[in-house]
């Protein structure tokens, strides 16, 4: 079995053309990071008459880390100082340039406002946000408890998840925020999957190897070897591209504070999960593995339909393209493509009604994707199995 697994790798994956394609797509991905960053922006730079100075970066580097009252007081004092300078009519302070003063006071004020009003305030007041959430949840539960028990249960789950939440540090999480919402690398993996696995059975049919495999009675083992190969490829490419994405996005934003809770990222303030950002990164990879394994299975199934690999590739692009196109019209929990965007799954309290019980979307969607993958695998197995030998008849004279 292990040997067959190795040969399936050799058949499908150990090809120079694939290596070349992989390298090219990695470069395209790095370019996409650059473009994403350009679109998203690198916050914290102030333009001065003297040219660009990394004032925002300086401020951030000074204040980041554990949030103490002393640090907050320093920020407020600094903000007050700038506001006073502006109020005095000295719009441009050209005498002093230091790490906090760019010389362009309006720009400096915007920087400190962004840090204090948007970022620090969010972290500092997060426990209050959760208290508000609990209050709203209580009202929600109270309202629904008699008329819609399902909604009341949802309220309970939301309320329970909101306890013991706080953000003890001030930091920026742009790299992780973009990573969790980054779909381009999954798109690249889909292309690789089509390129690698659309020939899985078509090539076997074209070469007649399928008949040899069946005559050896190894169709089942070969089927499992193919499934494992696809799964290993998906896992390996998801990990590879996760590393590339983290390095690529981290290059622009840094990768600090990965141990902080996921809700430290503002887009995830209402996440149902009390996990760290690092765990969310791992979870994101897992979700992608579920989604891409499903897509891989679709590709393998398509490869059983024809002995022409070119036709299989065209069919794969057509079918997967149609699935992507149909995605907005399919309920999220039934659509494995949902798993590619982690943000959709874990940034908010989303539930699926299962027999009157609310099941979080991040649990329901992978389970359904897994079930769909298993169904496709079963169809694939049936299609590629030989007719059952009448074993007793064959072997006994």
């Amino acid at each position: 079995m292990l040997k067959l697994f190795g040969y399936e790798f050799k058949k499908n994956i150990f090809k120079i053309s694939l290596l070349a394609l992989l390298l090219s797509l990695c470069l395209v991905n790095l370019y996409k990071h650059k473009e994403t960053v350009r679109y998203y922006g690198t916050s914290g730079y102030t333009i001065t008459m003297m040219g660009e100075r990394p004032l925002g970066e300086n401020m951030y580097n000074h204040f980041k880390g554990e949030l103490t009252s002393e640090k907050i007081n320093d920020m407020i004092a600094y903000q007050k100082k700038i506001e006073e300078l502006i109020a005095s009519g000295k719009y441009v302070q050209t005498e002093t340039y230091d790490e906090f003063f760019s010389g362009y006071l309006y720009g400096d004020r915007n920087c400190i406002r962004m840090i204090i009003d948007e970022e620090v305030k969010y972290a500092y007041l997060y426990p209050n946000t959760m208290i508000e959430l609990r209050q709203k949840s209580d009202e929600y539960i109270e309202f629904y408890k008699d008329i819609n028990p399902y909604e009341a249960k949802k309220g309970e789950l939301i309320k329970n998840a909101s306890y013991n939440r706080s953000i003890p540090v001030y930091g920026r999480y742009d790299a992780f925020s973009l990573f969790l919402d980054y779909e381009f690398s999954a798109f690249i993996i889909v292309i690789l999957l089509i390129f690698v696995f659309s020939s899985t059975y078509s090539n076997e049919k074209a070469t007649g190897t399928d008949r040899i495999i069946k005559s050896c009675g190894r169709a089942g083992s070969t089927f499992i070897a193919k499934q494992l190969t696809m799964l290993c490829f998906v896992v390996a490419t998801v990990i590879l591209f996760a590393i590339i994405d983290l390095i690529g996005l981290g290059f622009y934003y840094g990768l600090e504070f990965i141990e902080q809770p996921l809700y430290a990222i503002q887009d995830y303030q209402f996440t149902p999960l009390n996990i760290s950002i690092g765990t969310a990164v791992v979870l994101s990879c897992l979700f992608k593995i579920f989604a891409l394994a499903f897509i891989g299975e679709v590709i393998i199934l398509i490869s059983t339909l024809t002995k022409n690999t070119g036709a299989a590739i065209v069919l794969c692009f057509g079918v997967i393209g149609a699935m992507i196109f149909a995605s907005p019209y399919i309920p999220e929990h039934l659509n494995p493509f949902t798993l590619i965007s982690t943000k959709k799954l874990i940034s908010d309290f989303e539930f699926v009604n299962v027999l009157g019980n609310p099941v979080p979307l991040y649990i329901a969607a992978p389970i359904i994707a897994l079930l769909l993958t298993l169904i496709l695998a079963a169809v694939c197995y049936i299609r590629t199995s030989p007719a059952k030998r009448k074993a007793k008849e064959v072997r006994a004279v």
Partner: protein
Amino acid sequence: MELKLNGITKSYTKGKKRKNALEDFSLTMTEGVYGLLGPNGAGKSTLINIITGIIGRDNGSIAFDDNGNSDFVSHLGFMPQGMDFYRNFTAKDYIKYIMALKKFSTENDNEYALDILTRVNLRNDADKKIGAFSGGMKQRLGIAQAIVGNPKILIFDEPTAGLDAKERIRFRNVISSLAADKIVILATHIVTDIAYVAKTVVLMDNGKIIGTGTQDELCSAVKGKVWECKVKPDEVMDYMSKMRVSNAVSDGEYYTLRIISEDCPVKSAEQVQPTLEDVCIYHFGDM
């Protein structure tokens, strides 16, 4: 050693019609080469697919006995019709892959693969990518993969299609060398392939056996029905359209026609010794 096919029946539904691909096919085989001869659609490939387990059968049984050993699957070597290979594999890789498929291993798999390739004269090409192989080399590799594990039953489905004369002779020689202690089933519609190597010829048409025996036995059945006569070139087409002509050879001025006929076709015709080709023309008309 004995392979017994008993009452094999297989039918397909095409549209609303049901067609018998094999009908009550029974045959007992022992060591030696069995040539399955028949026109396209005779049921040769269906029979092979049933023996190899690729497709099921509607009725009948297959029994194998080799001194009490009835394990059929692990004693099967098969070269399918129109076989091709993975271009990025070397010949040695491919043989080792087949060894893995057949769950066959030795103390030194590399050496075994080289030994197998030596038997089909491919040892010097063992580490070449199959993508660079000629048609004949691929065909020999096809034979090589079939004999991995020293199977007792070897099945070749249209093995010489597309080969040049030299490669076909080489193929026949390899088959002859393998046949001493094996049941070799050779399905083809190329009569000469079988004429040289088959111990027993099985004539098939419409899913049935229409004749079986040694070449001599089959030929004697049409003895007195094969004629040779000389005709003018402008008469050749006329003869061909009216009679079963198995051969036409020109000597410049005249054509010598070989005609299969119950009665003497022309006065000048002489009876000749039938060949396997004549037998086929007699039974199948044009193949």
